[in-house]
């Protein structure tokens, strides 16, 4: 084979010129924004993705904990509400569920009840909360429609066998929000009396989720509540960063109006301004006040 084969010939150059001539700069710019946005989202979600393999481990614990929470919550609900139709359990209800010989519903829930019985009900919940912060937080329950109220009616009571859901995040959320209906009713009654606010971490997680999904109504409600606009998640990302990475200009603009910082950096040292620069989407830049 001659060197001629390995050198650019006229026809090669002609083809390269033809491609250059046919390049559509507008399409290329749109592609650039789309690809870099997708890569930025990919990078932004990487910690969550990398955390997935750990979930099955916490999953088992999560279910056990959820089951035990539900069991203990049932007890608490019975004690609070004193249901008239439940007299059959009235003597036994004073004792831990684990002590009751018959009702142990399934092999998977029994050890959990054993393990949790001596502990106060808040224990397992406290362990689950950080997981829920990392995963998708529960839907906002502020001025939300009834369907958004944590899905309690569909949540199985504690003894129900866990159906493997397609989405592990959904499971974690379900695990946190899976008290039996009676406990949920009691909890609602309690909350309506006490109006106990959600923890700042939970509220921040809701803000992040709303920003990432571009849910303007939820964002507005949370921000109007006084939620810290620059509250970071575990990766140091703020709601503004989430909205930028998900390319939701309206959400980003709303967050900016509430004073979200462009300069604050995540744990990798990248600021919201730099994220926007990498995506370089004109609409997003305008929303952030970075372009006229």
């Amino acid at each position, binding site marked *: 084979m001659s060197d001629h084969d390995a050198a650019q010939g*006229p026809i090669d150059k002609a083809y390269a010129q033809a491609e250059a001539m046919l390049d559509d700069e507008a399409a290329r710019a749109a592609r650039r924004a789309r*690809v870099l946005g997708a*890569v930025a989202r990919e990078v932004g979600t990487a910690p969550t993705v990398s955390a997935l393999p750990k979930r099955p481990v916490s999953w088992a614990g999560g279910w056990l904990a959820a089951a035990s929470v539900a069991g203990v919550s049932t007890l608490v609900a019975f004690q609070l509400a004193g249901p008239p139709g439940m007299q059959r359990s009235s003597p036994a209800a004073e004792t831990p569920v684990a002590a009751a010989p018959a009702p142990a519903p399934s092999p998977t829930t029994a050890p959990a009840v054993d393990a949790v019985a001596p502990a106060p009900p808040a224990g397992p919940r406290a362990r689950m909360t950080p997981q829920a912060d990392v995963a998708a937080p529960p839907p906002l329950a502020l001025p939300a429609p009834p369907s958004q109220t944590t899905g309690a009616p569909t949540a199985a009571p504690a003894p129900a066998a866990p159906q493997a859901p397609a989405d592990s995040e959904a499971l974690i959320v379900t695990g946190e929000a899976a008290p039996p209906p009676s406990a949920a009713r009691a909890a609602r009654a309690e909350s309506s009396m006490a109006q106990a606010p959600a923890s700042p971490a939970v509220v921040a997680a809701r803000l992040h989720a709303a920003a990432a999904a571009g849910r303007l109504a939820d964002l507005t409600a949370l921000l109007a509540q006084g939620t810290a606009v620059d509250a970071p998640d575990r990766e140091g990302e703020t709601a503004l960063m989430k909205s930028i990475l998900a390319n939701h200009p309206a959400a980003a603009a709303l967050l900016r109006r509430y004073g979200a910082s462009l300069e604050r950096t995540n744990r990798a040292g990248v600021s919201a301004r730099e994220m926007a*620069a990498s995506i370089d989407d004109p609409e997003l830049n305008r929303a952030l006040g970075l372009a006229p």
Partner: protein
Amino acid sequence: MEDDAVEEADLLRAHRAGDPHAFARLYDRYDRACFHLIRRLLGGAHADAAEDLCQETWIAVSRNAASFDPAKASFAAWLFTIARHKTFDHFRRQRVAILATEPGEAAAMVPDPQPSPLEQVQSRQRAEEIVAAVEALPLEQRGVFVMFADGGLSLEEIAEVTGVAVETAKSRLRYARAKLRQSLAGERSTHV
């Protein structure tokens, strides 16, 4: 080329560390060639998939940034390998038969014309004719030709990307050029 490769490895490293500009620099450097390769491999019938495959390719680059080794391949060769796999995966999904190039195919060995309108593309119409002629090439010849002519890969790199011997890559390139000369010469004559 080696300096470029080192720099590209640095850009990938910076990207993994969270530098948002690093990936954009890399993208801007190779987007055109990568898109052209995907677009030409797809041909007219599958042109709609080019954008998606391009995005999939760059996401794969981002995900697998840690596995790029400049000592083993240039970034361009690595990128084109990913792009080619994505395109062929698309064909498989669409159940498109990927026909092997017939090495003995009697492509007329038309001698190189003198510098001509081919060398200086003077009109968009001519450019479209050239691109159409490239898209009419057999798939493997097309890939080799595009990677060589527009992607700037050496024959050795193309052989690596396509998983064939260098001699095979060379002959594919030769056949591709010959067919292009033939078809474009024919089109020129019909225009005259």
